[in-house]
């Protein structure tokens, strides 16, 4: 399967060995992000990097794991609640004067969102490249929830993402 190199900027210690070994110059860029269009996926940079900062990622991912219908149904019960929890906490944080309360509610809203994202991830929306994501975007385009819906964003996503199912 074709691969491409990606550099984790947080781990990169600028030892520059990847610059020496790359046959195409893909690792040498002004913003430190490896140039995917130049990368031929040889893996030499990842092998040379003393900081373990480069990972070789398949350019085509396998389809995401199938989820049981019942698991998704029970997950939906939780995602409904989590969405309401986030909304209540964020509404309260917008109303209160007390700084402690404000921070607690802001934290609760943020936390509820993170937990909800995780449930979404495990209930059919792990990969942006999945069929589920594609169908969701198409549904939103065919029947936008309201006039203000960012139609262009959905269209661009459908064009950019390499769907894999």
């Amino acid at each position, binding site marked *: 399967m074709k691969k491409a190199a*990606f550099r984790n900027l947080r781990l990169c210690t600028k030892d520059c060995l990847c610059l020496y070994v790359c046959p195409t110059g893909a690792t040498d860029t002004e913003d430190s992000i490896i140039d995917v269009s130049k990368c031929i996926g040889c893996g030499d940079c990842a092998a040379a990097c003393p900081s373990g900062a480069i990972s070789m*990622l398949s350019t085509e991912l396998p389809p995401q794991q199938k*989820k*049981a219908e*019942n*698991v998704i*149904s*029970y*997950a*939906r*019960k*939780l*995602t*409904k*609640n*989590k*969405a*309401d*929890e*986030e*909304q*209540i906490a964020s*509404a*309260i944080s917008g109303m209160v004067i*007390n*700084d*402690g*309360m*404000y*921070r*607690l509610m*802001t*934290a*609760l809203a*943020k*936390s*509820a*969102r*993170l*937990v*909800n*994202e*995780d*449930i*979404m*991830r*495990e209930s059919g*929306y792990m*990969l*942006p490249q999945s069929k589920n*994501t594609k169908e969701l975007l198409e549904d939103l385009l065919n029947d936008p*929830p309201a006039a*203000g*819906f*960012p139609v262009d*964003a*959905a269209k*661009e*996503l459908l064009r*950019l993402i390499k769907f894999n199912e």
Partner: protein
Amino acid sequence: MKYICTICGYIYDEAKEGRTFKGLPDSWVCPVCGAAKNAFKADENSKPLSGAEASGAAAEAGSDLEADKKNTDNAFSETMAHAGNGAEEEFDEDMKKLSAGELAALCSNLARGCEKQYMAREAALFKEIADYFSTTAPAVPETDIEHLAALFKKDLESGYPELFNEADSALDRGTKRICVWGEKVTNIQSTLLARWEREGDAFLKNAEVWVCSVCGFIYVGNTPPEICPVCKVPSWKFDKIERRYPA
């Protein structure tokens, strides 16, 4: 007798502390992760504290164990009952339709998925759609702390146990992971809310509030924990909640 924090694994050793666990005030919280007293479980392998003062504690701990066993039995029989009729449980169509709030979380989750794959443009677009849903979500009718506390309680009492059972019979360990993490985080959320209702803002005044950007664990203290007690990421993954009125 030893008591173990079910959130972070911290051990309260009565012998070392010189004080029975039962004797601690209800406002006591885990010194590592901030979990409430009721998030602790008696360690079945530890010896009860010897001496007259501790005998009461040991007896109580014994009844705790009994209670625990009962709970486990109950949970087990519920699982069995559930496994029998799980497939027939009806979910109405309304339940399956995603609310704006859910769509916001779904899309910001996909934004994170893109970010991880170094797809910056796609991440920004999903973020845009997520923000659209966040701002247009119709308000929840009861916007108060009691209602929020009731939702947390519902998740802990039925939401997570039900999803965990279902994931278990489907051999879905990914979903079991989010149950383990999410249940701990929800426990902390609920504890913090209870603490607020009991103590007001005293415990927040001179402390920062941190949120683990991976699992959502909330920590109150001056510096974030070295590793997240729930998902084990390092401290730099914690985000500080900024004050409303910077000094």
